[in-house]
């Protein structure tokens, strides 16, 4: 094992895949001259001349051209700058990329990756702080992944680049400078498989991305209260690995879903529905959701912190499904 940052882990993934396959290329705003706003592309342009490219501020082109490139024999990786800007190119994502294979009867593979830095960071305010996985959850034809650590970032990005389907790669901005252990040897993290981060027997927490570490920390504190929490890191948000979730809930009989995105219409709603459909008679308490309040993310840090879900919210939800005061 070596210890590297999340940002370096994505860089290693890019480098390895670009060395392995000359048809992999990457483009985005400010990735060559700046190295990416979070330094996640530093050094890559020098190693792969012509295959790492700055583009104009043209989101419909950034997303739409990835489809054209993928259909014609290359494996593009398109960087969105901020996940929020997917909104600018929603038709390209929803009506073109997601529908292409199905609508044309499976004529072509669509090996493309949309890298989308998301989440709340440093008072970035309403248009640069969103977690937008809920926007794309309702669209058949997309794969959505969200790593939670340097190791999963590297393994999932490599898998995403090799996938013959469109993948949206949500990478939380707060994670970039964080360090973590990453295997020395080459590895892939499978798409479509959740991982149990911490085994437990009283309550299942289902979470992903930045909230995994917050849930793990909350779980450690809850241990002191005698509560044993199992933390599941989804890693892939679409398709959901409900088997892992349901197996856990059948064991713990209680489920809390935690994400940074707003609660209303979020992934938690889908997971809660599926849990009650598949494990209703195993449940000893209502399934609870923890996420941001149903508001845009405000600028002032007082407001930003209030709107976001925190560890206290997580702990409170866990206690509530155990019918404990909190």
């Amino acid at each position, binding site marked *: 094992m070596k210890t590297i940052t999340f940002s370096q882990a994505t860089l290693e993934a890019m480098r390895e895949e670009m060395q392995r396959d000359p048809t992999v290329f990457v483009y985005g705003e400010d990735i060559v001259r700046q190295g990416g706003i979070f330094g996640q592309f530093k050094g890559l342009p020098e190693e792969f001349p012509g295959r790492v490219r700055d583009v104009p501020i043209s989101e419909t*082109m950034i997303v739409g*051209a990835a489809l*054209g*490139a993928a259909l*014609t024999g290359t494996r593009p990786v398109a960087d969105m700058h901020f996940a929020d800007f997917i909104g600018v190119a929603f*038709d390209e994502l929803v009506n073109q990329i997601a529908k292409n*294979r199905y609508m044309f*009867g499976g*004529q072509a593979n669509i090996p493309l990756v949309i890298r989308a830095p998301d989440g709340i960071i440093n008072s970035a305010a309403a248009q640069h702080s969103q977690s937008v996985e809920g926007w794309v959850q309702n669209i058949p034809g997309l794969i959505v992944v969200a790593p939670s650590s340097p190791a999963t970032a590297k393994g999932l990005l490599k898998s995403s680049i090799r996938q013959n389907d469109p993948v949206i790669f949500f990478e939380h901005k707060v994670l970039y400078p964080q360090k973590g252990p990453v295997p020395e040897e080459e590895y892939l993290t499978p798409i479509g498989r959740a991982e149990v981060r911490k085994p437990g027997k009283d309550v299942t927490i289902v979470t992903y991305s930045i909230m995994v570490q917050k849930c793990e920390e909350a779980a450690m504190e809850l241990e002191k209260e005698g509560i044993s929490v199992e933390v599941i890191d989804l890693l892939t948000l679409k*398709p959901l690995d409900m088997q892992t979730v349901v197996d856990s809930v059948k064991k713990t009989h209680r489920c809390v879903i935690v994400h940074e995105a707003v609660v209303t219409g979020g992934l938690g709603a889908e997971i809660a529905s599926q849990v009650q459909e598949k494990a209703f008679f195993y449940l000893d308490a209502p399934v609870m959701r923890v996420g941001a309040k149903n508001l845009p993310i405000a600028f002032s840090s007082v407001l930003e912190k209030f709107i976001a879900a925190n560890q206290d919210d997580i702990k409170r939800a866990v206690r509530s499904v155990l019918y404990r005061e909190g």
Partner: protein
Amino acid sequence: MPFQKKEFPDKFAALSKEDKVGLLRTMVRIRAFESRVEELFLNRRIPGFVHLYIGEEAIASGVMANLSKNDWITSTHRGHGHAIAKGAQIHRMMAELFGKTTGYCKGKGGSMHIADFSVGMLGANGVVGGGYNIAVGAGMSSMIKKTDQVAVCFFGDGASNRGTFHEAMNIASVWKLPVIFVNENNQWASTTPTSFATSVARIADRAKGYGMEGYTVDGNNVIEVYNAAAALVEAARKGKGPALLECLTYRIKGHYVGDPEKYRTKEEVQKHFTENDPIIRYADWMKGKGLIDDAALATMKAEAEKEVADGEKFAEDSPLPEKEDAYNDLFSFSPSEFPEVVK
């Protein structure tokens, strides 16, 4: 409608007699297909929406004669003509319109989503202006793989008002991508005249805003279209970058089959059809040059009609999809691998 003519080198003159006849045959085959599709739709044998290319055949025929199967095109909701000219097979197109499993999209696409990736036809598109960036991406592939493949993006006058036009034209120019933007200005965006909805008289003028060459040709003169496309495709192939080619034409049929067309007179339509039918114009020219006679033209039309009739028979005899086929083709993997995908 006046426009500044650009004299392109007469590459057409150097074509063999066979190739010159081929330009006409493509147009005649498209017309035969579209005419029968119109009847079939009106007889309720084809469901959905159908947008016909009748009267605009010279553009697809003239442009595609400059492309190989390795080149790519993106098409529009009015895409049957592009598909046929690019080399798609009529019987499989017809099967798609019938919603049969033998259709190009196994019955999942229909008229607005005709595609044959095997000949570089990257798809009709139900979203107006949806093809620009796909063509740009194809141009990027050509650049990354260092091939001389060219992408041609067909789009209508209505689509020239989409924002995607701007982003695609700009990047194509900045990166000198091998993409030719072929505008089919048929005067009508559904019920809205081009003159009402478009800020410039000549869509080709918009190329200037992107530092790109832009030309206007008579889109109902297949020779003009051929020569302009020949020059622009050759330049793109040599790495000289993109261009915009506006082809002036007229939408003879309604926006869709069944359109009551209350926004224009029958006389206006009839005048265009009798005076400016691209097939009659080119056939007459060929007759004048002794390249074809009435008997050969009649034979060509009969052959095209037979090909369409055979295609219709093939479509009729083909099986409808099984319900469970709905689960296939969403991803590269089988639904059984990830049951949650199609839960």
